């Protein structure tokens, strides 16, 4: 409420004093500072990424890409990250909605809990998953009795990725729901729309930018996930060796292959994040 009032007053002031937004920044010290800081940051991010691209000629990268190990890792990564992002969305949307719309005792604890996987070192997350779903784990021992073992399977990869990446989606979606005016939903209800209809046809389209941004973050995080995956799911080509694990192992023996994998990862991530950004319009 305060924020919108503040925005209104600034807009009012701007209109009244007839200064356009761009004109307010004509003072060159401000411009210079912004320019320098922004350039430094962009260079800091851009140069290391570019160095990956220019290390090898494209033909070398292409020939490395055709190794079965590389193709397996790529395929596995794409499948598992898609599954984990889907899982994050399906399970994360209700959580985000509840946290955004309702107030209850222990809400702050729950919010912290949901954010906790993002601050845990990934290997710690992996150990935690192992202690829970491993063969001797808290829940895993019962699963083992009925013949289900999770470690060393692709399912374990998806679980590890979901564990570390879902919080990104939940927090982004929650922010989206929080800033959506409740009157839209209330209006829909007065028009006799069911809660499901309201959610899918009214609320979700309106929070689409936040959702897409959350999906992008979550997907990117799960694509880069290494520590929890290798600890919980292990490393075996074709089953659990995702691209980050393959890059890490390759970097110890065959740097060219590692760079080729890294370039592909970069290209795929860049493409998808760009597509999500374009989709927001």
């Amino acid at each position: 409420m305060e924020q919108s009032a503040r925005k209104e007053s600034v807009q009012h002031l701007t209109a009244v004093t007839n200064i356009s937004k761009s004109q307010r920044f004509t003072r060159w010290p401000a411009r210079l500072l912004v320019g320098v800081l922004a350039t430094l940051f962009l260079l800091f991010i851009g140069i290391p990424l570019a160095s990956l691209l220019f290390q090898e000629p494209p033909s070398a990268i292409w020939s490395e890409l055709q190794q079965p190990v590389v193709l397996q890792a790529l395929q596995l990564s794409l499948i598992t990250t898609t599954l984990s992002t889907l899982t994050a969305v399906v399970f994360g949307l209700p959580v985000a909605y509840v946290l955004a719309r309702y107030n209850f005792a222990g809400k702050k604890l729950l919010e912290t809990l949901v954010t906790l996987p993002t601050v845990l070192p990934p290997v710690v997350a992996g150990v935690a998953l192992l202690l829970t779903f491993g063969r001797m784990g808290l829940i895993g021992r019962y699963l083992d009795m009925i013949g289900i073992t999770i470690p060393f399977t692709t399912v374990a990869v998806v679980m590890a990725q979901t564990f570390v990446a879902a919080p990104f989606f939940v927090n982004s979606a929650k922010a989206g729901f929080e800033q959506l005016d409740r009157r839209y939903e209330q209006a829909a209800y007065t028009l006799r729309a069911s809660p499901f209809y309201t959610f899918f046809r009214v609320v979700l389209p309106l929070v689409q930018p936040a959702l897409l941004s959350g999906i992008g973050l979550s997907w990117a995080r799960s694509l880069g996930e290494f520590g929890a995956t290798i600890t919980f799911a292990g490393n075996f080509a074709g089953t659990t060796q995702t691209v980050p694990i393959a890059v890490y192992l390759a970097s110890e023996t065959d740097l060219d292959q590692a760079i080729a994998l890294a370039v592909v990862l970069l290209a795929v991530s860049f493409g998808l994040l760009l597509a999500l950004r374009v989709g927001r319009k």
Partner: protein
Amino acid sequence: MKRQHRAPLVSILILLGLLLAACGGGSTTTSGTSSSGSTPTTASQAPVTLNIFAAASLTESFNAIATQYKTAHPNVTLKYNFNGSQILVQQIINGAPADVFASADTTNMQKATAAGLVTTPKVFAQNKITVVIPAGNPGNITSLKDLAKKGEKIVVAAPAVPVGKYGLQVLDKMGKSPQYGPAYESAVKANFVSQEDNVKAVIQKVQLGEADAGIVYRTDVTTAVANKVKLIEIPDNFNVIAQYPIATVKSSKNAAAAQDFVQYILSSGGQTVLEKYGFISTGSSGS
């Protein structure tokens, strides 16, 4: 309203800070022992920090050596970087500041020598390979032959890791023998479910009961894990003697102190500790 909300936040932050300080104080890799009156053997008294890059399998023994070393050389602080030897040599090649490099195999030390980064290496310890199973034996493994049973989950180190390579060599020897044969070798390899990045990760998975068996160094069965795992010995005729070379790094800023450390490792002081932790001493005591 705002003031009431700030106080609990501040107190929580202060509490966290105190906790971190308390934890941080106890986790140094060298323990400052209060020894009385032992005269240091090195001439210089200036405080020196040595960066020791050592293979993961040397963790327990080198940590024990650090305690003893501090008594003899109170001005020297040992900072350890324990990791797979293949990672350590990459780090050194890429300019990481190391004073001493202790590798778990000669292949990785040769990479460092070929790059002209280390002085002449000396073998300071030897290690053997063994199979470990969780104490509860979920895979029902009683002998080496059982490793080939269908459905067993065997965790090994990746081939680039020294112990992974040694494990494959052992299986190769067994595959060439009439006792086991090539079918055995391929059956065991088909039971590999994970290829870890360092030997400690293999032990971790066996310890947790995730793996039915793992191939590790003899020395990895430390006191900490001894009651959680059982050993299945590999007979000497199939076993591989892993040679551990040590060398000082040429670019070290503390060459004399680094050389002193290497000498200590090769001397009876260091060798006794290494033997206590399961290594085979090389018998080259140069003290």
